[in-house]
């Protein structure tokens, strides 16, 4: 029998794969968002996910819940209240001294137990160092599907399954992935890919408490220390409102100073393409793109950047993109909003001056 004939005989799926949801999994209901917090603050990705989760829950006609794991003296109730304001109907809260500070083992058990007990159909996590670590472990423990770094989440009307779209092959292609015969359906999403939802001061919800059922002696890995990044000069590219980025078109590391100069005047963060990072002109934290950061600034200025797909996927969410490139056929002009076909080495300093003078004039007028 050829492969084609075989697939005709079994319409359920290729290689005899069953793509029907088994009866016992049909009771799984609701959309969950894992709420990531650390040292007293919730990571903004969790609110972004609640916004997206709300849409999924509404199109399925089910509830949206947050999941909060943490220590007894952490502000989990405040975080839950905030989750309600961002769209959650309820929050599953697990408090235990063991859950203070992220460790894989207790968090995997905590989240897995909650899923088994309450049976959500969709579980979303941020594609952060915590979210990816946890999602991979929980999905394996539950034996279910997990789709990483999604850029779009929808409900497939035919199957009511989650259709998760993500870039693949370094961003050259997109693919839509579904988990048809298993529950829950799990996905991670990078920070800043989804917009922040509106906050509603008057929304509230219910808290459902859970218990971990582990003692510290059960846990093999100990958290000895947390060394915060020097908070003063930390690069916070993902959440920057204005970014000036430079690419290989700047030719020499010294020329990259022109990018810093413009960023200085604009009060902007500095970004870069991968070749620039690899050449050591700037720190890896500043790389924008598929293998770097996803950004969503109000203004993104790209100087000497070709606009390769791997860079594009990281910055096309910007409200306004300005490109400076000598090559009128550079792909960046296909998706930038404004452009200058010109030499960045000359245009950047001119732009720095033009902005500086413009602002000086405006301030003078205002005074």
């Amino acid at each position, binding site marked *: 029998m050829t492969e084609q004939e075989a697939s005709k005989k079994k319409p359920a799926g290729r*290689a*005899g*794969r069953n793509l029907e949801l088994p009866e016992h999994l049909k009771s799984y209901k609701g959309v969950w968002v894992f709420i990531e917090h*650390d040292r007293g603050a919730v*990571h903004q990705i969790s609110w972004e996910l609640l916004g997206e989760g709300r849409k999924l829950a509404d199109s399925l006609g089910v509830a949206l819940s947050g999941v909060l794991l943490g220590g007894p003296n952490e502000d989990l109730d405040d975080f839950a209240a905030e989750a309600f304001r961002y769209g959650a109907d309820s929050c599953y809260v697990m408090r235990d001294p063991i859950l203070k*500070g*992220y*460790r*894989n083992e207790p968090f995997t058990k905590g989240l897995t137990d909650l899923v088994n007990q309450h049976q959500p159909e969709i579980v979303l996590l941020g594609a952060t*160092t915590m979210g*990816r670590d946890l*999602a*991979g*472990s929980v*999905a*394996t423990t539950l*034996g279910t*599907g*997990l789709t*990483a*770094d999604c850029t779009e989440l929808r409900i497939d009307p035919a199957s009511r399954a989650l259709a998760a779209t993500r*870039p693949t*092959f*370094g961003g*050259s*292609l997109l*693919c*839509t*992935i*579904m*988990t048809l*015969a298993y529950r829950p359906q799990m996905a991670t999403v990078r920070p800043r890919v989804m917009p922040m939802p509106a906050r509603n001061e008057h929304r509230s919800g219910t808290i459902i408490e859970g218990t971990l059922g582990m003692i510290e002696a059960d846990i*093999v*890995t*100990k958290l*000895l*220390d947390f*060394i915060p*990044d020097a908070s003063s000069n930390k690069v916070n590219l993902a959440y920057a409102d*204005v970014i000036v980025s430079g690419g290989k078109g700047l030719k020499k590391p010294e020329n990259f100073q022109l990018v810093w100069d413009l960023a*200085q005047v*604009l*009060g902007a963060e500095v970004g870069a393409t991968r070749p620039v990072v690899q050449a050591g002109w700037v720190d890896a934290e500043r790389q924008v793109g598929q*293998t770097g950061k996803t950004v969503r600034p*109000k203004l993104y200025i790209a100087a000497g950047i070709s606009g390769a797909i791997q860079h594009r996927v990281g910055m096309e969410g910007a409200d306004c993109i300005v490109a400076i490139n000598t090559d009128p056929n550079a792909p960046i*002009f296909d*998706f930038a909003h*404004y452009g*200058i076909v*010109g030499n960045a080495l000359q*245009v950047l*300093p*001119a*732009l720095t*001056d*033009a902005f*500086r003078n*413009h*602002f000086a004039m*405006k301030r003078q007028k205002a005074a």
Partner: protein
Amino acid sequence: MHIVVCIKQVPDSAQIRVHPVTNTIMRQGVPAIVNPYDLFALEEALRLKDKFGGRVTVLCMGPPQAEEALRKCVSFGVDDAILVTDRAFAGADTLATSYALAAAIRTIEAEQAVDIVFTGKQTIDGDTAQVGPGIAKRLNAQLLTYVSSIVELDLIGRWITIERRAEGGVQVLKTRLPCLITMLENTNELRFATMPDMIRAARFGVRKWNKDDAGIEDVSRIGLKGSPTVVSKVFGPTPRAEKAELVPTERATPRDMALNLVQMLFTKHPLLEAELLEKARL
């Protein structure tokens, strides 16, 4: 000490082109390489071997041609190389891949106990970072992802202290062996293979295991059948309808262009102007 390093052979995606009409990957002529992130894991394993002695085994699941990737690793000085290859593995997603690799590692363990399993942070073709955590769970080994440095290893007490990248800082974790480490990029610099190493690699007998050799117990959990995720659609990114509005450049100096751009930007986005004005450092 015995370390297993899991590697993957990937197409050099820097050189991948997408067919403009069919939206399929054009692999022809695209060289296959060892997933670059895995090399940081391999180097770290070799450094531990330099310091503590013992053995390093590289393990790869893939098609027969992935043997080349293993040979490349041999040239850096590993002791054993195993390619797990079988048609039954085709179409595996990360869950099915971690099942197969974990089974193979257990089979390796039957020959010699394993202290540490290394993987790279993620692959450059899939980018999921899910296989490492999957293997760790299946082996019941402690999982340490995004590890930036190994602070201390005590083979007698059987514990290890590492630093890992977390959001906004670095976690220092201490755990017991065996553990699985996914290594962060740019954590070390890969050594060069010497001529004798390369000759040794060319002659090296890479072991090839089919699914039975690898100790797969449940064939419904490997390959396409064992993969819960279903790829329903592959497509190219949609081009935006309109192109960038260009600043006139004819007989314009860079200064003219810059003034023009600022004018154009702020006429169309007055709100942006107000916001930038607040941030501006003159």
